[in-house]
């Protein structure tokens, strides 16, 4: 069993939105049709996106921390949006676990979006179908691309490599190792949707120093240190010695 997924490292994400724009660029140019926008340069712009980067402030001043939080479809292993679809347009691929929408079958009843606790689905107001992250399914298997580029557009765009892509069911994969070793977690575990995408938490690097460690009893520098300069009124070497 393969379950492709993203692992997003919140410790590294700087909130630059490069994943958002490259996602939109790749997917709006794809064979499935554009992701429509309304009033893109107007006062109240809106449009269809697969990926959003949100920002949260944790704590109160001065002990605050800013968290940039990229949010897209989590490709749940037990996706609540799939069984509710009346037409079968919403489905989870057996071969790689990607949750997809068949735009030719979708009737835009929006029921799947009601059934997703994460709000990962957005309707395309012009094409009138439900859309969501496809993990760039039209890219990751493309034999015409060099192997290094067979990754989702967002992963390739990330300047800080905060986004990892791979098979979370393969224990040896980069993503599995990252989840295992860096405390990867799932969003809203209370609904038992088992999201395939994981997030790596903010991690602090701290060293613990005790007060007695600040000065070493056997510090060799004390023996070899420069001696204090004698004062001007002190007798010089010439005064105390008879050459």
């Amino acid at each position, binding site marked *: 069993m393969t379950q492709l997924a993203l692992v997003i490292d919140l410790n590294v994400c700087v909130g630059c939105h490069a994943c958002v724009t490259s996602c939109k660029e790749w997917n709006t140019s794809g064979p499935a049709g554009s992701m429509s926008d309304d009033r893109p340069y107007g006062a*109240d712009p809106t*449009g269809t996106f697969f990926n959003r980067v949100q920002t*949260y402030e944790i704590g109160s001043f001065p002990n605050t921390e800013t968290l940039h939080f990229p949010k897209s479809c989590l490709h749940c292993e037990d996706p609540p949006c799939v069984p509710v679809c*009346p*037409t079968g347009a919403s489905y989870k691929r057996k071969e790689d676990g990607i949750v997809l929408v068949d735009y030719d079958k*979708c009737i835009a009843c929006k029921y799947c979006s*009601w059934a997703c606790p994460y709000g990962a689905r957005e309707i395309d107001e012009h094409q009138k179908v439900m859309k969501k992250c496809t993990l760039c399914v039209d890219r990751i298997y493309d034999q015409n691309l060099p192997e290094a580029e067979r990754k989702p557009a967002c992963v390739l765009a990330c300047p800080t490599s905060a986004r990892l892509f791979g098979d979370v069911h393969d224990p040896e994969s980069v993503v599995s190792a990252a989840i295992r070793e860096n405390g990867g977690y799932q969003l809203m575990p*209370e609904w038992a949707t088992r999201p395939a995408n994981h997030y790596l938490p903010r991690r602090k690097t701290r060293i613990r120093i005790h007060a007695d460690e600040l000065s070493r009893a056997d510090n060799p520098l004390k023996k070899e240190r420069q001696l204090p300069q004698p004062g001007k009124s002190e007798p010089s070497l010439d005064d105390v010695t008879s050459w």
Partner: protein
Amino acid sequence: MHPAFSVIFLTTLIGAGQGLFLALYTGQVYAFFHLLSAQADRGFYAGGSLIALSLLVGGLIASFFHLGHPERAWRSAAKWRTSWLSREVIVLPAFMGMVLLYGAAHWLDWNPPLLTIGTLTLNATMVFGVLGTVLCFILFICTAMIYACLKFLREWHSPLTVANYLLLGCASGFTLATAYSAYTAPDLMGFYGKWAIIITLLAMASRIASLLRNSKLKPKSTLQTAIGVRHNKIVQIAQGFMGGSFNTREFFHGKGVALLRSVKWIFLLMVFVLPLLLLAGGLSTSAAVLLSTAFLVQYAGLLFERWFFFAQANHPQNLYYQAIA
């Protein structure tokens, strides 16, 4: 959730249609067991079935306005094994067909006796009625389960949702049957009227029970579980865009708490209190006008009730859309 008028009209119209059919058939069953004088007028059942059918057709038409691609609606019968919406899509036309058959059989007098047990004669319309009743109850369950099966919409995820859809639909249907019989078969007015009062009282108990349940709900999802950070104070600074998106339009009703509260009192008054008074008044004075007013007030109240039902549901995705910047 943002209440969609297509779904509000769909659920209230088919609810009233289903209730009216059940009322008609209840009258026939009582007559079958000689508990009620049999309706000799074949037009009574046929006319009632026609009204029920028009309500069901009206609901079906309203439902198409909810779809982005109504021309593909036939596809929605595909996943009946997993989706309550798909099941509703199958059962609704089946039930409409059975109501049509039931009304037509009465109107055309196509009612051959199939079986005689002592003094009881089982006619074809009785069989159509049983099948219609079964489909009607399945349809109530399907409609309600569309909402009740979504476990993280906790205001809906309760057996009370199914009870409410069933009882509110039946209440409006029986009230309509009372008004209908006041004009066409005044003998039956008292029978339907008493049932309408009983079912309206039951519906009131069940709806108030769900209001009390929902007022005590504590959200399972919090901003902490939504983004996976353990801190008591987390504030959203940006949701990723400056304008709106589908997420901000579909899942927020955008109205104040005061409006929500007043809609609650309006529907409690219009669905339960006023119709009960009008029914009691209409039955005691045999005034058909009061009885038809009872139905109109109750139906209008149900539109408020359904609006409130959707608006009250708090979707966990809203946690991700708290601030624009």
